[in-house]
């Protein structure tokens, strides 16, 4: 039950890091208000970051059985096998982002995590791998990391 992680350097003054968790569900993401038929996919769904500080994504966890594929603000996919069978390029939550009551799923990257500038946008695509229609209102996507505050624009 031990997960080694790489340490990240603290920012130098005057920057300050503050733990931050973005949680996206039907209450703040209108795209999750509908349903998704078996085998269907959504288009790109933007996950908007706050405008007050840059954000380093370091972990995530999700709820629901919808498969997903995330992209960082530079449109780099965080998972993809580029298989000819398009549906196999999505991550099944139980193998990627679902936890069984403990912790979150670490996303290890260099340079402090996956950086989104203030007001930046991660993108998620959803796919229903089950044999029945799923309500997207069951989906919760939590992005966990650090906001980097400064009065002199040091993030990045």
């Amino acid at each position, binding site marked *: 039950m031990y997960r080694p992680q790489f340490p990240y350097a603290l920012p130098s003054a005057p920057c300050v890091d503050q733990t931050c968790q973005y949680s996206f569900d039907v209450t703040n993401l209108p795209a999750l208000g509908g349903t998704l038929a078996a085998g269907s996919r959504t288009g790109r769904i933007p996950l908007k970051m706050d405008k007050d500080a840059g954000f380093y994504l370091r972990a995530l966890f999700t709820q629901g059985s919808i498969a997903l594929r995330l992209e*960082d603000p530079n449109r780099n996919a965080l*998972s*993809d096998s580029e298989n000819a069978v398009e549906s196999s390029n999505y991550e*099944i939550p139980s*193998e990627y982002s679902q936890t069984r009551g403990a912790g979150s799923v670490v996303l290890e990257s260099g340079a402090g995590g996956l950086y989104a500038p203030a007001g930046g946008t991660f993108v998620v695509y959803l796919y229903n791998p089950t044999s029945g229609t799923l309500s997207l209102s069951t989906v919760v996507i939590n992005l966990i990391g650090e906001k980097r505050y400064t009065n002199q624009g040091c993030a990045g």
Partner: protein
Amino acid sequence: MKPPYQQRFQVYVIGANQDPRLASVAAGATLEEIKLTTDSDAPFVMTGRAVRTSYTSSLNQANLAGLKSRWAGPKKDYRSESLRESLQMVYYGQFGNPKPIAPGVTYPASSTLLVDCQNFGASAITNLTYYFFGYKLYPWGSVVGYTYPKRFASQTFAYPVPVTGLGVSEYRPGQIFTVKNDADFVIRAGQGPTFFSTDGRTFAEVGIILRDFDKKPYMNDFVQFDVLFGNGAAPATIPVGPTPSFVQPFGTGPSSPGLFYPEIYVPRNHQLRFDLQRSDGSGGSNQAEDFTFNLIGSKVFEK
């Protein structure tokens, strides 16, 4: 600091293929000197341990509650008396969480892994299998060992690996995993498929042998996905205690994935091979199944 030897991930398996007595360990039976000779190409440092039996139709491993065992170092030096495995290891070391052995125990090349076991439960233990996790030690340069470039950037990444229509008793060798051409990929962890048993249809006994591009294996026999990787939706219940209560695994899954140590570095456009074996048999409504497993790590971009 560069370690004195080149390390390579390795799992040694001792199951019914290595000692036929493990196919069925009768109630009350004691098996002594269950042996496996380690490979002759390198010493092995054991750093973790797990044990498993075939699932029952209700997806539990109840009979493991009656298992006592003890294991020995390379000089037949037993490290304990026979102990109940249920009281030693979280989930018997399964779900990607092998019981740590620290400090690691070094076995010279061609030495013997030795286990004794006793089933003091009321029922036979079917296909009892011991797993020894660790790494081999090679002189530097004697085996291929790709690693990071001098200057690089890394980004978290995961490859979902699709498997289509794996038959109820199918052996599928020589499957290929190819890293994309934009970056190297370092494998640090994995997650396996969700096993299930519903409506007479069971998908629960699937193992993998992972190999490098040269087909040199990282394990001597099939390692079940729920031992090597685990899963975030593990359906199994695990017996705890001498009169077992059955609990679902807690805290397993992608937040504590099955780890590869040392990690496996695969340059871009390079390949790994893997063999799959499913042994659920044709009972009930069993059928060929599609699934994925997930290789988790980082892309490495040379600067």
